[in-house]
Each structure stands twice: as structure tokens, then as C-alpha cells.
């Protein structure tokens, strides 16, 4: 879901490259919303690849989100990138809406929807995506699946429809540390790798959630390795 801004960046760097040529590694979303929730989020991906256009590329996102009620959560992001040897540049804005469809544990699978609209200010590209969020508990194990349909359009890009998939298989060991395996797949990039997650609690129901992982390419078209991490402060 996040690959479009990298792709847009690549488009500028390599004219003729399609917006579909990006990477899929970003974040796995869970289909739950809590009322009164507010959060600041920072997440980043660092790429390592033989391709000089990808090698050393950093993607940064800073977002503020708040629940609208007990079913809807909205978040706004600013998105920047940094090429090796260059300074950080602001590339895009994104609005996200998450909709919790079922109560956790009510049915065999928990359901949610995620809507995203991204505007790339550099090349006037737009992207709208809708993702189905699925989650199921297996004792202390939890499986999560995000399946997205994405439409990209703009005057400087080829309009196209894409799909992407992100999956996470997580073991709830303890609140501060949960190991997981994540799989990402888009039309042009595929990766799998270990991830760790955790939550640190503070007084006043404030929390710091963290995630870090290293995703390895599953084919030659994907970035060799993507290091991703996220900090999310709930207050």
C-alpha cells in the first residue's frame, strides 16, 4: 500500500518507469478501532538493493490519527523520501480511513476496511486504495491479512489498477515483545521476513507501540532487503 510514493519517486528518477514499479513493504493493519484513541505515528523503510536507484532509499511517514467513534478511525500522513547522498524531501500526503466492521471475536474472522487516498505533490499522481482487513486468533497466535485494490491516475503517469497483499503471523508472547513473520506481495515486489512488535505502557493509558522487521526479497524484481520500523504513541 505504501509503494506508490516510492514508485512516484522512482518515476521521477527514471522516466518511463511505471508507478506500479515500487515495493510493497509497509505495515500490516489490524481491523480494530477504539473510541477516544489518538496517536502520533512515525514509520520508515530503508532499502538495500543492487539497483542503484533503490539502494539506500529511505521512506518516512509521519501521521496523526484519531478515532471518530467506535467504528471509524482517521489518520493523516506526510510522506517523505531520502535518496542515498541526498537530503530528505517531502513527496506526498495521505488520508486514511479505517472502518471496523465486526466485533473482535464475534465471528470466525474479524473484518475491517481501509480506505486510502494519496496525493503526490511532485508529479500530481493520485492513488486511491481499498483494503479488506482480516484477522483471526488461534490461541496465542494471531493471523492478519490485508488485501488491497489500488487505482492510480494522473497526468504524468499511466492510469492503472493494481493489487497488493500483506500478511502477518504473530505470536503473543508478552506485551513488550511479540515475534512475527510478515509477507508482502504487490504486482512487482514480493518479500518475507521476521518482525518484532511490542507495547510499552505509561500512566494515564498512554502507550508506545513499536514494530521492527527485516523483509527479504522473494524474487529478483524486489528490493533485496527492506528494513522497516514504526513507533506509534497513543494518548
Amino acid at each position, binding site marked *: 500500500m505504501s509503494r506508490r510514493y516510492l514508485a512516484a519517486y522512482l518515476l521521477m528518477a527514471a522516466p518511463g518507469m511505471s508507478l506500479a514499479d515500487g515495493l510493497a513493504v509497509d505495515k500490516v493493519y489490524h481491523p480494530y478501532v*477504539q*473510541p*477516544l*484513541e489518538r496517536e502520533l505515528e512515525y514509520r520508515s523503510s530503508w532499502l538495500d538493493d543492487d539497483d542503484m536507484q533503490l539502494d539506500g532509499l529511505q521512506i518516512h511517514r509521519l501521521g496523526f490519527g484519531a478515532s471518530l467513534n*467506535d467504528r471509524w478511525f482517521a489518520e493523516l500522513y506526510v510522506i517523505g523520501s531520502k535518496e542515498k547522498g541526498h537530503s530528505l524531501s517531502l513527496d506526498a500526503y495521505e488520508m486514511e480511513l479505517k472502518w471496523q466492521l465486526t*466485533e*473482535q*471475536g*464475534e465471528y470466525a474472522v474479524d473484518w475491517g476496511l481501509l480506505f486510502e487516498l494519496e496525493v503526490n505533490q511532485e508529479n500530481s499522481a493520485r492513488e486511491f486504495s481499498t483494503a479488506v482487513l482480516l484477522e483471526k*486468533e488461534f*490461541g496465542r497466535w*494471531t493471523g492478519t491479512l490485508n488485501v488491497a485494490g489500488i487505482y492510480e491516475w494522473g497526468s504524468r503517469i499511466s492510469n492503472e489498477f493494481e493489487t497488493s497483499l500483506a500478511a502477518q503471523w504473530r505470536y*503473543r508472547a*508478552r*506485551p513488550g515483545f511479540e515475534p512475527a513473520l510478515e509477507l508482502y506481495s504487490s504486482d512487482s515486489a514480493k518479500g518475507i521476513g521476521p518482525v518484532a512488535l511490542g507495547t510499552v505502557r505509561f500512566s494515564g*493509558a498512554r502507550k508506545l507501540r513499536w514494530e521492527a522487521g527485516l523483509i527479504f526479497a522473494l524474487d529478483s524484481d524486489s528490493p533485496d532487503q527492506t528494513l522497516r520500523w514504526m513507533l506509534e504513541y497513543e494518548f
Partner: protein
Amino acid sequence: MHRCLKMLPLLSLMWSCGGLAAAPVFEIEIRDHLFFPSEFTVPADQKVKLIVYNRDSTPEEFESYELNREKVIMGGAKSVIFIGPLKPGIYPFFGEFNPKTAQGRVIAE
């Protein structure tokens, strides 16, 4: 006796076949930042529906890492939480906004 009767609505674990797929239903209350009852027994290996009434004017969050649940219940409102199927055991929960007072546990057997 009178005291017991008075507590009965609070301590009663309402068992019914209403709701979803015959999941047993239990009702608990949050009052003065405490859970009533603070401990109750549910059938193991079966999904259970909890209806949590927050009688306080302030919100509270039912939270349990062991149950893999967190749910904010607004002041004066109720919320539904599905838990399980649980293996036999003890599963603590607490109110995240008042963790020192609002504590309880679910016993699955």
C-alpha cells in the same frame, strides 16, 4: 439477606442463549472504577459474550493481554466483548484508565 439481594443484580452472571450462536452471555458492571463482579467463571472451550455496562460517568477500557481484548466503554454506556474459546485457566483483566482499582479475572473451566 437484604445486602445479598442488593448485590444480586451486580453479581449475577446472566447466562442466556440470546445473541450470537448460543454463546453464553455474561454481564458485568463498572461502577466507582471497579468491576462487578470482579471474578466470574465461564465455560472453557466455548465462545462467551460479555456485556459490560459502564455506570460511571467517565470512560473505562476493559483490557486483557491474556484474553487478547481491549475495548473502551464510554461513560454511561454498554459494550459487547466476545472472548474465547478459552482453555481452562485464569485470565486477568483490568480497566486501563483506573488500573489500580479496576481489576478482575475470568476463570475458564
